[in-house]
């Protein structure tokens, strides 16, 4: 059953890496946003707004 171990670790590693990276990005955004005193996106001064094509 060696294929099972490899297939599942392949899926697990992929999921883990993507989740870890996404978590890091979102957390970093939160920390920076708090430090800068910027409200959540959509409240007027969010960074996404300065370039409308990415916040749509």
């Amino acid at each position, binding site marked *: 059953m060696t294929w099972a171990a490899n*297939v599942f670790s*392949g899926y697990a590693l992929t999921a883990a890496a*993507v989740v870890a990276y996404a978590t890091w990005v979102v957390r970093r*955004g939160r920390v*920076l946003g708090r430090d800068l005193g910027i409200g959540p*996106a959509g409240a007027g001064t969010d960074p996404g707004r300065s370039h409308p094509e990415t916040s*749509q």
Partner: protein
Amino acid sequence: MTGSVATRVLGAIGLAAAAVMAILALWVSPADAVQGDAVRLMYVHVPSIWVAYGSFVLTAFASARVLWRTRSGAGGTEGVIADRQARHWDRVAGAAAELGVMFTGLTLVTGSLWGKVTWGTYWQWDARLTTTVLLFVTHLGYLALRRLPAESRARARRSAVMALIAVVNLPIVHYSVDWWRTLHQEASLEIGIGGDRNYSGEMYWTLLYSWATFTLIALWIGIHRYRVLRLEELAEEAALEELLSVRRSEPSHDEPVTER
């Protein structure tokens, strides 16, 4: 802080798509006639590299835009607009390159795991594998270059040049490695994708579906990363402002000296 209605919807769709993908890829799609169930690794391996290629193409395109928008000469309002656009494309390049590196890394790892099952070894000095590992390392270098503190305009231009060299170099690397291997190896060991083998319709659709899922998730992370890069710039500017205001409010060191 970097979320918006659009990204929340996108994120939710991505998550749902990933759940459906897991069912399709691990359960619904049939096992391969030759490889058996090991073929299921294809649904993470192939979409990873497709997304990575897409990201690197985006990095190169954005880098070209950065160089285009930072040509010297533009002044006044036009210069301000050009500067803003250059910063925008620089962030796009940075966010895309990070995603590309992550997905290339995942491609290498899942490829090794797949290779272990089908070829019996984790690694082959095959043209595609060697090129991929060089692609990975080159873009790691690109990210390392981006991290170094420097004046933002100079950093943007320098990284843009690096990204474009990486792209120009890619075909040379690929063909030289290809040639290097084919001269020393009778048969290519590609049992996976790319051959003439026909996969069944279900496998084909599952692969396309997985690719769409990966693209959605990459897009979601990429938008957030773009906004975080923007926040990092704002934080840098704020820190500088703060430093300046502290410096201004401090009693100047020169004045007492001159008074005395």
